[in-house]
């Protein structure tokens, strides 16, 4: 069964360092998302991406964050200068084109980011 894959599964970084989290969405999906979950809290929407541009972003997604589809398979989330409060589990998700707002989102297993 096709699945969304994320790397790394866990990354530890020093405050102020740049981090790139990678995702490979399901191959025929064209809508991509990043969500974040701070430890013990609920999952929060960060950003959605379609047709090589951001289609929606939350108030959490400030100038420190960026997303990119560098090639035909990867979807990345970059945090330019990490802060302690960026420590969280980051989830990538994708869904089929043409079923926006009615389609099932498929989530990856998450990348745990720890900022020291």
């Amino acid at each position, binding site marked *: 069964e096709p699945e969304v894959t994320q790397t790394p599964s866990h990354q530890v970084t020093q405050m102020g360092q740049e981090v790139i989290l990678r995702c490979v969405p399901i191959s025929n999906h064209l809508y991509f998302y990043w969500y974040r979950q701070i430890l013990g809290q*609920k*999952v929060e929407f960060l950003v959605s991406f379609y047709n090589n541009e951001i289609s*929606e972003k939350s108030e959490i997604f400030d100038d420190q964050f960026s997303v990119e589809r560098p090639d035909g398979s990867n979807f990345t989330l970059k945090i330019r200068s990490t802060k302690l409060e960026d420590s969280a589990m980051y989830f990538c998700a994708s869904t089929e084109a043409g079923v926006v*707002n*009615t389609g099932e989102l498929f989530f990856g297993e*998450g990348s745990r980011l720890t900022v020291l």
Partner: protein
Amino acid sequence: GIQVEQSPPDLILQEGANSTLRCNFSDSVNNLQWFHQNPWGQLINLFYIPSGTKQNGRLSATTVATERYSLLYISSSQTTDSGVYFCAVVLYFYGNNRLAFGKGNQVVVIP
């Protein structure tokens, strides 16, 4: 924004017991999903169920969209069912499938 309320927040079950988790939402939705977050933090898709009833093994779910709630049933619970169960919804308007998550039901199944 849409409110997603899950109950009970915490539940302790004896292995073999049955349970029902509830998700109430404040507005019309056209996407509802249930997830299980295991102890390693991974989110596992359980059901995509904007309406109706579905079953998958010992788990089943029912969404009554007109009354704005969904139920997740766990039958004959096992210790591997432990974790947090999340309900997530998308509002019924043209958008980008932005899922709004509830705070989750923390389930502990004891042997």
